[in-house]
């Protein structure tokens, strides 16, 4: 009984310490303002690592075979991830795509050609299930 209590106490201390470390961390984190009320197509940890692969796989099917839409299309990304302040995924320090790419120092080429703001069509497709 005592051992179990001790284990629980240790766990509680560890969790509290973890939370304190995240709050008072000296490591800067990217800041962005997006609507986080809905769930992305995959968990955030997975999306951080694989979003570029999902997009690259999609793009050839879209351009060459005409298969458009779907959950992994760039317009769907932008429909949800546009900033709450100015409605774009790029162009502002708190824009979702730009803030994270600036943080990790990776060049963001998509928006040389693609529109970073959701259009009327993008908004509609985001609403439909």
């Amino acid at each position, binding site marked *: 009984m005592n051992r179990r209590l001790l284990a629980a106490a240790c766990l509680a201390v560890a969790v509290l310490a973890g939370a304190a470390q995240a709050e008072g961390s000296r490591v800067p984190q990217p800041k962005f303002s997006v609507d986080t009320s809905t769930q992305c197509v995959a968990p955030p940890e997975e999306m951080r690592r694989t979003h570029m692969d999902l997009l690259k796989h999609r*793009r*050839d*099917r879209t*351009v*060459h*075979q*005409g*298969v*458009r*839409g*779907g959950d992994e299309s760039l*317009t769907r990304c*932008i429909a949800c991830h546009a900033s709450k302040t100015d409605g774009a995924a790029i162009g502002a320090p708190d824009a979702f795509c730009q803030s994270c790419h600036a943080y990790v120092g990776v060049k963001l080429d998509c928006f*040389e*050609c*693609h*529109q970073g*703001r*959701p*259009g009327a*069509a*993008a908004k509609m497709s985001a609403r439909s299930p």
Partner: protein
Amino acid sequence: MSEVDKSRVAARRALVAGAAAAMAGVLLAPGIRLVEVARAAPGPNKPGEPVSSKVRWGLLIDANLCTEGCQECVLACNRENGLDGRTRPTDSQWIRKVELKDLRSGRKASAPVMCQHCAEPPCVDVCPTGASFKRADGIVLVDRHTCIGCRYCMMACPYKARSFIHETLTTQKPEVPRGKGCVESCTLCVHRIDRGERTTACAQACPTKAIIFGDLNDPESEISRRVAQVKTTQLRADLRLNTGVRYAGL
């Protein structure tokens, strides 16, 4: 005709009608009926499915109906695809209105000229990266992800249909991505076709219905019926590129 004969004819008619209805409902294989096969083939591809070579999209432009000086198709194209509509040598133009005049007779004709969506496209032949390609349904496109902006295709095109983007853009339409350093041309409103729409911006905007969009492979489509009835020409037919854009009354 006697009463007996009449009733016999009526009975025979009923039998024929019933047989026709039964034939339509015949099961060819489990779950597949003749009606469904007839409806499915050769129909255009549905949204979400890869495009098929059973379809060949094209335009029929009737120069007899096209009004001299009218720019509605050009303006509609610019609006649809987010072009700024300027006509400097360095600006993109996907459609140009061309006015023709026969010097001997003085006969005038007017028609829009855009990418002719050739079956044997010279722009695809010369592209060093494979960025210029023809989709299975006959639409000639540039894959901007692989285009390096060398502009060989612009030189190879006999219709002067392609443009190069010289300046940074920020006002693209979400469904029509375009950017500096790539070659582009008429896409036959490919984003509309993939959504399942069956018209282009230019055809929709033409006030005299001089532009017809449709499937050249489907004998029942309006464009195929018109091509079968009226004499149509392909621009520079001597090059034997088998263009998807046909002209009547030139």
